[in-house]
């Protein structure tokens, strides 16, 4: 019978787990001023029924894009809030899109969606989509988009329900097509100026 000597070998195996993580509470929250908002990257992902979901199809709505996973406890805590938001604000032009980052895709996600009675659209994410949104390294990570499809706020990690709710309500209450409104105002102002100039006496 062979004997095994492993003395002194274990020290070399010491592993430091979770050593490459982000800080636990990055600044998140308040809505960005409209001028500072960047257009959200578009994605096309399939939902549970195999239908393609294009983010651009949601232009005109306030959208909460939530990156999550079935193995993520903090993500699970948010799900009842999102279910409530979807019910409460859907008719006002709001939608939640859940992008799952589960490696095994629908195998885990489909039963989870059923057991948690999720009422909003769920898609399976990809590395590409994660990169497009700035390397999603920790979950949950959520983006709240205004009606023009711009990122109005982002949240990394679990935040208060009321923070989401306040942002959603503010964005829903903001005048629709504010970008076009602003542009229109500018054009109108220009025309007004031109007409005044045209009406001026030489």
């Amino acid at each position, binding site marked *: 019978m*062979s004997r095994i000597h492993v003395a002194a070998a274990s020290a*070399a195996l010491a592993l430091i*787990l979770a050593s490459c993580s982000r800080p636990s509470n990055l600044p998140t929250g308040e809505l960005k001023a409209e001028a500072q908002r960047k257009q959200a990257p578009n994605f096309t992902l399939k939902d549970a029924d195999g239908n393609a979901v294009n983010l651009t199809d949601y232009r005109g709505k306030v959208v909460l894009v939530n990156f999550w*996973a079935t193995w993520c406890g903090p993500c699970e805590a948010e799900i009842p809030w999102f279910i409530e938001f979807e019910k409460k604000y859907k008719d006002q032009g709001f939608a939640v899109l859940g992008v799952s980052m589960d490696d095994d895709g629908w195998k885990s996600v489909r039963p989870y969606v059923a057991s948690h009675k999720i009422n909003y659209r769920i898609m399976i994410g990809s590395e590409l989509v994660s990169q497009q949104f700035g390397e999603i390294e920790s979950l949950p990570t959520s983006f709240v988009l205004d009606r023009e499809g711009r990122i109005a706020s982002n949240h990394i990690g679990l935040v208060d329900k009321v923070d989401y709710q306040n942002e959603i309500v503010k964005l829903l209450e903001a005048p629709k097509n504010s970008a076009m409104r602003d542009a229109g105002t500018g054009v109108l102002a220009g025309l007004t100026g031109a007409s005044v100039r045209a009406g001026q006496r030489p």
Partner: protein
Amino acid sequence: MLPLDLRPGYHVNSNKPSDEYLIPLRLTWNPGPLEAVGFVFPQPRMEKYSFSEKPLSVFTGDFQIVTHFKATANAAPGPATLTGKLRYQACNNSMCLPPKTLDVSLQVEIAK
């Protein structure tokens, strides 16, 4: 024995998580001159986190996983390297990191 050190504030699910969707801590060894015949994990802690209604079965801080090996019939005497994988998934009180699989190796001396 595999010593592990978790960053303060983080936890990993134990080898027997309290929820079916949580990813367990798992150590596996590749086939080689030694065969793993048993693992000894520490006693998990049942910790309550703000995001969870129920306490979760987790490991935190420093801990060790002990593997019991037996030599296979064709194990030759002399030095050998055992290789394996450690799969874990870590969270803190507000966020989770994606599951990771780390390569682990162990130098052993097999004697007659």
